[in-house]
């Protein structure tokens, strides 16, 4: 039987890789992909908690996380498209509109 | 500077070269489409891939020997182009063909119209996705080709009409077969119409596509079904009758909206009118010779006569070496109603046996250049429908 800890280690690893990508990539699309990675890392831990605690709430939460991820992807990508249309760039360091 | 670069690069990304090798362009038409998503922002037709210099070739040949060149203009309806050429040369030379020849020429050019429209229907439907219509239409086109073969031995590049008449008389067997065809054909037309006429998808793909108003159609120089679809009853068979068109009865069908569907309807009606004209020609076909009495001056005499008759031998010799000797000096423009529109031949003669200048006004060329007007602002799929409705044959576009 695989210990719960192992799932949590995996989840933490995926999450931190997502954090790394989010912090270091210039391309806004990769930043979004990193966010998806982070959400997936969280989902792994939620589902494994649900299994080991024999409680459905973890899975329900994971379900909502996926819902929110979908909403976030839709809005975020729409923003990327409209930014690209105006600025012709996908690099966050070139998007300096809100700097003032 | 950078701004400009960005713009050009963005445009390059969205430029689609439709053709010259593309299943929908029916030959070697090249359309450079600048797209915004699926919408056509700019359309530039590039012609000339099939240029063979027919006009220049015609200036180096005698009036008679230039005739087969016209076969290669619109190889889909070569009979009409032969007729157009001989009508023009006859006007230049002042020759009047006998009545029987006139009726035969009217009959065969209407057969060519049916044949050409059948090919149009087949490919137009295939472009829009109705595959079955293609094969049905080709079944009848095959029949017409067989009839042409029966008439003159050639199926596609016929070279049947001659200056001052036609090459040979029609046989009774041919007339019977043609009559049978005209009896069957309206039923076949119904078959095509059952497939697409009321089909919702067909209507969606054709109504309101490639709309051209009557005024714009006239300004663009559109002729034939392209302008009749917009409601202008411009038809040279009525306006400037040639051959026996003033002795047969027919209507000029017109559309109202000038869209692809109206042009489709116009051509479908023309099928019926042409069928009627062919029937009238068979019924009214007068007896008599099929060559004008002064035709030997322009046309090679029969071989057996050359062997026996001194006059014929001289005509033969002169015709082959010098060409028709009596071409008067001057200019002449003569147009006929080809299946695709107004086909005009313009000659400048310097009195020799060959034209000083031969200019051919082909309908498809004008229609090809009208494509930007018809397609800009529509979808890529509509471009295909419009190419179909313009009924382009690249042989005559590029000449």
């Amino acid at each position, binding site marked *: 039987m695989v210990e719960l800890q192992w799932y949590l280690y995996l989840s933490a690893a995926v999450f931190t890789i997502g954090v790394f990508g989010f912090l270091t990539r210039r391309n806004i699309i990769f930043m979004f992909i990193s966010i998806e990675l982070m959400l997936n890392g969280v989902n792994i831990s939620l589902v494994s908690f649900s299994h080991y605690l024999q409680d459905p709430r973890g899975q329900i939460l994971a379900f909502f996380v996926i819902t929110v991820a979908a909403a976030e992807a839709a809005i975020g990508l729409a923003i990327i498209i409209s930014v690209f249309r105006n600025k012709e760039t996908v690099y966050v360091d070139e998007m300096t509109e809100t700097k003032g | 500077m950078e701004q400009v670069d960005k713009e050009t690069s963005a445009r390059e990304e969205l430029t*689609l070269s439709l053709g010259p090798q*593309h*299943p*929908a362009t029916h030959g070697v038409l090249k359309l450079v489409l600048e797209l915004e998503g*699926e919408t056509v922002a700019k359309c530039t037709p590039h012609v000339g891939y099939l240029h063979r210099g027919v006009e220049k070739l015609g200036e180096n040949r005698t009036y008679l020997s230039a005739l087969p060149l016209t076969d290669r203009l619109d190889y889909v309806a070569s009979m009409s182009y032969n007729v157009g050429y001989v009508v023009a040369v006859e006007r230049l030379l002042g020759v009047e063909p006998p009545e029987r020849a006139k009726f035969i020429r009217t009959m065969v050019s209407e057969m060519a119209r049916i044949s050409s429209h059948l090919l149009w229907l087949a490919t137009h*439907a*295939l*472009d*829009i*996705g*109705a*595959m*079955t219509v293609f*094969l*049905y239409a080709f*079944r009848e086109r095959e029949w017409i080709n067989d009839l042409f073969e029966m008439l003159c031995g050639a199926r596609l590049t016929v070279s049947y009409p001659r200056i001052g008449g036609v090459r040979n008389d029609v046989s009774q067997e041919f007339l019977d077969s043609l009559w049978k065809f005209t009896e069957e054909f309206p039923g076949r037309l119904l078959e095509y119409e059952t*497939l*697409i006429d009321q*089909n919702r*998808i*067909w209507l*969606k*793909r054709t109504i309101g596509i490639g709309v051209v108003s009557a005024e714009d159609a006239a300004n663009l120089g559109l002729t034939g079904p392209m302008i009749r679809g917009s409601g202008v009853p411009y038809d040279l068979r009525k306006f400037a009758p040639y051959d026996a068109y003033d002795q047969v009865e027919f209507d000029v069908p017109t559309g109202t909206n000038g869209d692809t569907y109206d042009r489709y309807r116009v051509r479908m009606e023309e099928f019926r009118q042409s069928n009627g004209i062919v029937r009238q020609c068979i019924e009214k076909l007068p007896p008599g010779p099929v060559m004008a009495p002064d035709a030997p001056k322009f046309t090679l005499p029969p071989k057996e006569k050359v062997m026996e008759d001194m006059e014929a031998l001289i005509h033969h010799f002169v015709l082959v070496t010098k060409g028709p000797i009596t071409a008067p000096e001057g200019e002449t423009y003569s147009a006929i109603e080809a299946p695709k529109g107004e086909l005009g031949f313009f000659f400048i003669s310097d009195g020799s046996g060959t034209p000083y200048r031969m200019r051919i006004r082909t309908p498809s060329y004008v229609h090809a250049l009208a494509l930007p007007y018809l397609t800009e602002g529509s*979808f*890529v*799929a*509509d471009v*295909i429908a419009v190419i179909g409705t313009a009924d382009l044959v690249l042989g005559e576009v590029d000449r």
Partner: protein
Amino acid sequence: MTGFLETMFSPGSADMILTIGTIVVKIAILIGIVLLHVAYAPYFERKVIGHMQVRMGPMRVGPHGLLQPIADGLKLFFKEDIIPAQADKSIFYISPVICLFTAMSTLAVIPIFGGFVIANINIGILFVLAMSSLGAYGIVMSGWSSNSKYAFLGGLRSSAQVISYEIAMGLSLVGVIIMSGSLNLTDIVAAQEAYPLKSFIIPQIIGFFVFCVAAMAETNRTPFDLPEAESELVAGYFTEYSGMRFALFFLAEYIGMLLMCAIAAICFLGGWNGPFEVPYIPFFWLLVKVYAFMFIYYWVRATVPRYRYDQLMSLGWKLMIPLALFNVVLTGTIKMLR
């Protein structure tokens, strides 16, 4: 159910080898049957359409062209595999495999007759939908990696189409799920036995209609064959493919068709149940239904023209999805009132 995998891999289970062995044998049988059917589906199509179009169809290879599929297969197998110089090689290689993989793996949950199903999982329909949604990857990636404008446009069109019609298809199946109360395809067939004609065809007629249309769009068949509209985009997303890789796309397309027919037969037409039992051939009725369905596919292809891209989208979003939603509401209400 203890997880499918845990049952399979539970340590010390003496049945493990047997279970895996049975599954492998079943897979082999199913793939054999399906490949044979898929090889002859184009032949069937060409014959049917040929006769509809006053011609004969394939006649040269073997009696009535019966060996044509084999000849075609051999030809495709030995043809040169051309890869465009500017293509993204790795993705170009893998795209046809994605298409085929998604189509093939769906076969696992299709029950051929009572008891013969490779994976009798409880989320059968969800699995089918998941795999069909993944098919879009193969299409869009092949279009992108070919580095050709026609292929790219075809790929984008196709994926947009597949994604939109997937929603309608999923919703049309919801009615069936509500009526049978299960996502398991075997259970769905069992639930239909109580209904007239041993099928959901009468109560789920709207759903059936939406499913048929969506299935045609999903498999990119006429009148929704825009991605491969030869008159517009040459051959769409697989314009640049040749030889064996082209054959893989072809295979995937026909397996996809077979699957859609099978799912329609199972979910709406009562699966392998028929008016009477056919001895020794338990899958007889499923086969009949699948072939009838395929015939309709070909019939439609021979009859109608092609939709335009925006018209196809508006048909999907403005007609099919509302219809399917209406069907869901109707079925749910009736189920609740009973």
